[in-house]
């Protein structure tokens, strides 16, 4: 696989949110506005790229049996560093709204899932690019969700009013709005898929239930 393909893979084909259904908690929790979504996306991308790179560098030295604890330690270190850098240089209201979701990147299945599924088997440059691609895919998904929610709730994007005198459907700023928005985005995706399959003369196939079990971590329990 060429390096560019590795990078592009995470953007759409294997988009972590819309296709792999990974990292649901931050996806739903911090997308109440486009700005928060962007902040979270960037933080996660940094952690993904960094931890993928280091995991891939260390993959030869880490014994197979203790690899998961080792990956968790590496990821936790990156998360802590990103958290501290954000506290120092990011806008303060961003830190306040993202709050505990920055340290919780540690248990985001995307990060551990990519370390296990990609970085532990591939070279360091490819792993870093895979992390960046996945991170960008995650950021784009968060931005779509956050943008839609902010637009419906406030009629604005990045705190700039798009629709004047918008009454506001504030429900979309709460958890309910998060579930609804993601549900309807996935419904639209399903609809498109079904339409394409019909065009190709294939029958309707009910969508699979991907849900977090598609990340390798949960399989460890099996």
């Amino acid at each position: 696989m060429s390096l560019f393909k590795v990078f592009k893979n995470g953007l759409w084909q294997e988009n972590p949110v819309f296709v792999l259904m990974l990292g649901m908690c931050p996806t739903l929790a911090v997308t109440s506005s486009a700005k928060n979504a962007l902040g979270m996306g960037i933080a996660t991308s940094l952690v993904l790229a960094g931890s993928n790179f280091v995991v891939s560098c260390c993959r030869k030295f880490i014994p197979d049996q203790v690899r998961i604890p080792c990956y968790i330690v590496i990821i936790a270190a990156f998360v802590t560093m990103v958290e501290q850098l954000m506290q120092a240089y990011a806008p303060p209201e961003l830190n306040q709204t993202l709050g505990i979701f920055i340290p919780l990147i540690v248990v985001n299945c995307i990060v551990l899932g990519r370390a296990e599924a990609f970085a532990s088997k591939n070279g360091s440059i490819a792993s870093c690019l895979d992390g960046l691609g996945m991170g960008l895919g995650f950021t784009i998904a968060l931005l779509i969700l956050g943008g839609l929610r902010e637009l419906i709730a406030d009629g604005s994007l990045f705190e700039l009013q798009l629709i004047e005198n918008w009454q506001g459907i504030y429900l979309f700023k709460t958890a309910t709005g998060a579930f609804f928005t993601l549900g309807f985005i996935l419904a639209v995706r399903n609809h498109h898929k079904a339409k394409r399959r019909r065009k190709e003369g294939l029958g309707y196939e009910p969508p699979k239930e991907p849900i977090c079990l598609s990340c390798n971590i949960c399989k460890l329990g099996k």
Partner: protein
Amino acid sequence: MKEYFSLIISAILVNNFVLSRILGICPFLGVSRSIRTSAGMGAAVIFVMTLAGLLTSAINIFLLIPYNIAYLRTLVFILAIAGLVQIVEVLLQRFSEPLYQALGIYLPLITTNCAVLGSAIICADEGYSLMRSTVFCCASAVGFALALLLFASLRERLELSKVPECLQGTPISLITAGLLAMAFLGFAGLGG
């Protein structure tokens, strides 16, 4: 006493971990196919989260804060939780076969459940005492189990109903979860 009562009500209903704070969505969506499994998962989470709350806040209060190494918090907490889950698993297997049969398969799923780490971090951020963190974590886990059970019973009904083609699978589950979250909005302001 009154203080703890309002803490418990707030953690279970008002700031429900899943439906208000949005933590622990993966097991919420993944293990809610049937009431039986969700009850097992809920019990395992209550068990582990209470112990984890006690352990992590003890580490935080007696180790991290006195030695001024609070920046190691995330790393230490996740390792402590992972270790705790391992030990609990081994102990259950050794001493209580029926309990292990009931909860065993859910335990490894809990390590990467962000509700457990999330509750530990919330306790550390708010500066709760040892007793308060344990109560808070236990109540939050009960709230998680409650949401999981409610959602599982809704989904069992959902299996039998006709759902529009494009909404089948995950979308309808998410929308159902949204409706449940809307119902829980009604608790806002209770015992705050």
